[in-house]
């Protein structure tokens, strides 16, 4: 069965081929390109999906792969840089998620882009293809450098797709912001990558084969050596000398640097500001970005190198705090938004905050689980929103909607399924995963870590807000009476919109069943499939990527201890909060003509509606600080540095101008000078020669 794993490179390369086809055929032979490039894209992502599933099945039989497939830079005297594939259970799961969502997004685009008569379709499909390619290649990356490279390419694709409607003002600006803000995070990430190479001499996630090293493992060895077990790898020891820090300090610095990239891409506070603006992109792109690709990349990266992070309690605490804070912070902003996609944007930030919270509190499986469920229900919600937007003739304001439930039942029921999942209502997917994150946060927090408890508290509070804004959105959009002419007579949608919705709707309702921890605890059944899936094998190199190993690291290096708390009470609390939020939204907004209750919040609403003025200060940093600084530098350059150059030249010019006046063209003056010169010479010779 090793067959599937040999075809791994095909998974990213198929969408890349569709990118090339769309790009070249779109330029040279647009007539030959069926549906503006949609068909090649659909075929390619379907191919990727098939191979991914095949790989998934292969992995489930315990066959993993980690090998270099292309030496990017061969360096005989230093470490070589290479591209490789690493497919373990985590990657296999992510491959299926990404290729499935990408496939559905391609299908949906037929309805959203082609049927709506958008121009520049080949550009759109080329962008989607490249996006899918970059993300899939990122997922299978076997080392941090390759991960970084495709991480950056994902950023490029988001730029191209968010700015798809480049003839308008908003999208290019949003695209620029998305790239710039994430680039700021990636700056730290790149330092992190370089630091990993400088410290460990390798950036592999896992070591397979003779003489291979993996940096998480080397970090573990180094820290163990500090604790008195084994010896520290020589060059790690040397580099620690160079930077003059202890192993724990330096690794924490490196971990935080890499985390910079994660915070940028996964839109965590304070680099979350690009994400709501990114809604300027076409809705299917939003679905792709937020559910399965760009934003997921950050969290996936932390999960991918969890063997490194699990060693560093400081970094874990920061991850947990950032995550918990972001979850709450973004959820509060989602409460007051008027536009459908804006609500979803803040919910995305919030949900990724949960995943970070999970990773930071040692809930590796819980976070991966939430990554899985969120991918499906968030893709569903965005595609559902896209369907609504088609119906509403591209009006996104929820106050103009209402009553769409009867007009578009398929969209309604699937959207509802996604919303229940998002709000965390039992038994929909989001409940199980979010609850598990909170549970992990609670047990490790209660195990003597007040920071994690604080993060847990924020996460728990956010559940209420999540329930509220989710159902505010559902009620305003689908219930009540139509509040505008377009809502009276919405535009119909075709199979190509409904099919992805149904697939995702079913998944959003059921995918949570793969890991029902509370039920498993209660019944004693072994139904925590995801736990088994991610636990990792025993006795092979890949065991270093399994949860069993991470758990060991968390306990022995990060000092995490789980308190003994039964899962029921916490689950009930969070469910109650979610229901409370949802119920409050129902109470406030159901009815034929809901009022804008959030207006009553006054100053608080203004603060929330303006996103806590986060954009303002970042724009101020760019326009109010950096730009004047640049202008100042320019003035300095022109005035002082070039001024000196010009001053030197003006001195020569000036003195030359003066001296040349001697040469006035009057022959008599020349003769006078000659004579005087002769006389002067004679006098000098006379005096020095002693004639007088």
């Amino acid at each position: 069965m090793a067959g599937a794993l040999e075809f791994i490179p095909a998974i990213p390369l198929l969408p890349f081929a569709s990118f090339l086809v769309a790009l070249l055929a779109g330029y040279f032979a647009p007539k030959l390109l069926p549906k503006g490039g949609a068909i090649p894209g659909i075929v390619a992502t379907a191919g990727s999906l098939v191979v991914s599933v095949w790989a998934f099945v292969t992995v489930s039989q315990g066959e993993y792969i980690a090998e270099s497939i292309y030496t990017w830079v061969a360096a005989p005297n230093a470490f070589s840089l290479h591209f490789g594939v690493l497919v373990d259970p985590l990657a296999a799961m992510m491959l299926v998620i990404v290729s499935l969502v990408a496939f559905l997004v391609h299908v949906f685009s037929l309805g959203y882009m082609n049927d709506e008569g958008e121009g520049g379709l080949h550009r759109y499909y080329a962008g989607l293809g490249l996006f899918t390619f970059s993300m899939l290649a990122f997922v299978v990356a076997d080392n941090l450098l390759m991960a970084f490279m495709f991480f950056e390419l994902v950023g490029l694709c988001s730029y191209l797709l968010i700015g798809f409607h480049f003839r308008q003002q908003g999208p290019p600006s949003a695209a620029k912001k998305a790239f710039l803000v994430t680039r700021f995070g990636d700056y730290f990430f790149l330092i992190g990558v370089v630091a990993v190479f400088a410290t460990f001499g390798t950036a592999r996630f896992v070591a397979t084969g003779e003489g291979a090293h993996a940096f998480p493992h080397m970090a573990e060895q180094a820290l163990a050596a500090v604790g008195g077990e084994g010896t520290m790898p020589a060059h790690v020891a040397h580099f620690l000398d160079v930077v003059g820090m202890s192993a724990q300090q330096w690794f924490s610095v490196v971990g935080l640097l890499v985390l910079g990239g994660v915070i940028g891409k996964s839109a965590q506070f304070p680099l979350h500001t690009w994400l709501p603006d990114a809604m300027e992109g076409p809705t299917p792109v939003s679905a792709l970005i937020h559910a399965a690709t760009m934003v997921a990349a950050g969290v996936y990266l932390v999960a991918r190198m969890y063997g490194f992070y699990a060693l560093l309690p400081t970094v874990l605490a920061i991850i947990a705090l950032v995550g918990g804070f972001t979850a709450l912070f973004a959820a509060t902003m989602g409460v007051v938004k008027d536009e459908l996609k804006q609500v979803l944007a803040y919910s995305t930030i919030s949900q990724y905050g949960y995943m970070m919270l999970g990773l930071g509190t040692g809930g590796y499986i819980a976070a991966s689980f939430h990554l899985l469920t969120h991918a499906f229900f968030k893709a569903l919600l965005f595609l559902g929103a896209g369907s609504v937007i088609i119906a509403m003739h591209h009006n996104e304001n929820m106050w103009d909607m209402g009553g769409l439930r009867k007009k578009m039942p398929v969209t309604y029921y699937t959207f509802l399924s996604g919303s229940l999942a998002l709000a965390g209502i039992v038994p929909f997917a989001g409940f199980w995963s979010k609850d598990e994150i909170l549970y992990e946060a609670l047990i490790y927090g209660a195990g003597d870590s007040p920071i994690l408890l604080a993060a847990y508290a924020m996460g728990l509070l956010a559940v209420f807000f999540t329930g509220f804004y989710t159902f505010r959105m559902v009620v305003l959009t689908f219930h009540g009476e139509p509040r505008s002419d377009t809502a009276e007579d919405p535009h119909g949608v075709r199979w190509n919109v409904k099919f992805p919705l149904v697939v995702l709707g079913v998944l959003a309702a059921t995918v949570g069943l793969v890991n029902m921890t509370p039920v498993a605890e209660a019944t004693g059944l072994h139904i925590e499939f995801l736990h088994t899936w991610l636990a990792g094998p025993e006795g092979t190199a890949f065991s270093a990527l399994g949860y069993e190993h991470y758990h060991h690291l968390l306990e022995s290096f990060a000092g995490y201890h789980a308190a003994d708390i039964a899962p029921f009470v916490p689950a009930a609390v969070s469910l109650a909060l979610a229901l409370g939020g949802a119920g409050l939204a129902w109470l406030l907004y159901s009815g034929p003509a809901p009022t804008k209750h959030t207006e009553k919040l006054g100053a608080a609403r203004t603060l929330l509606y303006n996103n806590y003025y986060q954009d303002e200060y970042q724009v101020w940093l760019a326009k109010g600080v950096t730009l004047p600084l640049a202008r100042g530098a320019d003035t300095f350059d022109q005035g002082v540095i070039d001024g000196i150059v010009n001053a030197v030249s003006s001195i020569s010019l000036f003195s030359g101008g003066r001296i040349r006046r001697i040469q006035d063209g009057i022959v008599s003056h020349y003769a006078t000078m000659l004579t005087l010169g002769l006389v002067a010479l004679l006098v000098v010779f006379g005096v020095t020669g002693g004639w007088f």
Partner: protein
Amino acid sequence: MMIEALLGVTLLSALVVMLAPDRIAGKLAAGLSLLPVVGSVWMFVQFDGSGNALLEGGSLAFETMTHWITIGPYTLNWHVGIDGISMPLVVLSTVLTTLAITSAWTPIDERQSQFYALMLLMEASLLGVFTALDFFVWFVFWEFVLVPMYFLIGIWGGPRRKYAAIKFFVYTNVASLLMFIGFMALVFGLDVTTMDMPAIAQAIHAGQFGTTYGLGAETLKTVAFFAMFIGFAVKVPTVPLHTWLPDAHVQAPTPASVMLAGVLLKMGTYALLRFNFTMMPGIAQQYAVPIAALAVLSVIYGAMLALAQRDLKRIVAYSSVSSMGYVILGLVAYNYYGVGGATFQMVAHGLISGLMFMCVGVIYNTAHTRMVGDLSGIADKMPVTAAVFIAAAFGYMGLPLMAGFAGELFIFLGGFGADFAHAQLFTALAMFGIVIVAGYLLFAMQRVLFGPFAAETDYDIVPAALHDTVPIVALLLLVIVAGTVPNVFYGMIQDAVTPVVDAAASASAVVVSTGGVFL
């Protein structure tokens, strides 16, 4: 004899083109310039050199050495040859010349035969600079490069062309003088009777000092090092000796800008590598911290200046200052990735900055303005140009799988593992350049390419002609190839820089510690 043939063909082409009528000069020049391209690519494929041209233990490809003149006790030879450092630069020069000539078809409409003849003349002298291994021969070529460039700016340039041309010529020439004096002082202090660069390099390494004017060998070396460093730093250019560059770029016609940014600036870093960093590694390591600080200053300050500009050409000009700062950082890092990356970055930046200037030129050809505020949404009117522009800009920002990323990554890897004090801090600071570069290029693109179409110009914005599109697309493909398959020429670069790094390690009083393990 291959190098002589290359030089001869190029010079002969220049002569033929100068005598040709204007009507056919452009196409004739492009056609003739393909000969050196073919020649250099053939040489690239056949390349069999190993090691470094100046240090022992290597062999040169296509080497010729014959006695030329004797002046006093000194023997001057015609000595040319190619090693792994010069080979990619030779190919870069020939390829970029052809593309620049093609890109000149549209904008250059007067005294065409002279223009193209000067371009070819410049190519010949650039090839001379990158292949000459006798100081005398090298210096003749080095100085001669200025002449065609002076006329290209002075005759076909913008409104302030005279100012720019004279500033360019005088500034760089004064710098060359300083460098010449420094090097000559060093050579006269040495116990040699030749101007042969390998012989001089080996004599310096062996410490064969005779008369040193009562200074002591170390002092003489230090003085010579800094005289040469300043001389070359002007050419690179390094802050604060950079102010000739933006003026020259803005005033120069686009094809001349392409050559200026693409190849001429690399002469500075090439010479720094060949002379300062190969011949006197001890001094370079001793002053590594100030040099690295200068490099970081160039990177950040150059990028900040680019941020403040409105003229697209000025933006690219200042960002060249920024990018060349990385090269100096890589050189001073003195490890395999650092010096190799610096050399790689020379080629990568040559390709990318050439591409950027060509894109700006294509826009200027039709819009007749380069000001960021004057244009908006031109992606609508010239989609292919805009697409290449975007790709080029991302290349400049160091997008992975394009040449710039590879070069910068190598330099960062080198810089982070370097030995001098606070190397990591310097490298991290320099890396902030990748954020600023994204800032100004993204702002410029947003305003020029995107948004509703508007153009404050009296000309119609029309899509670029095929002969303008082909060069930029070709160059873009080269950038991508160099970024995806850097091994194509990074192997020979590494081979050539290894002796430099090893020599530095043995010259250094302290053991090159990090380098000893794996860097």
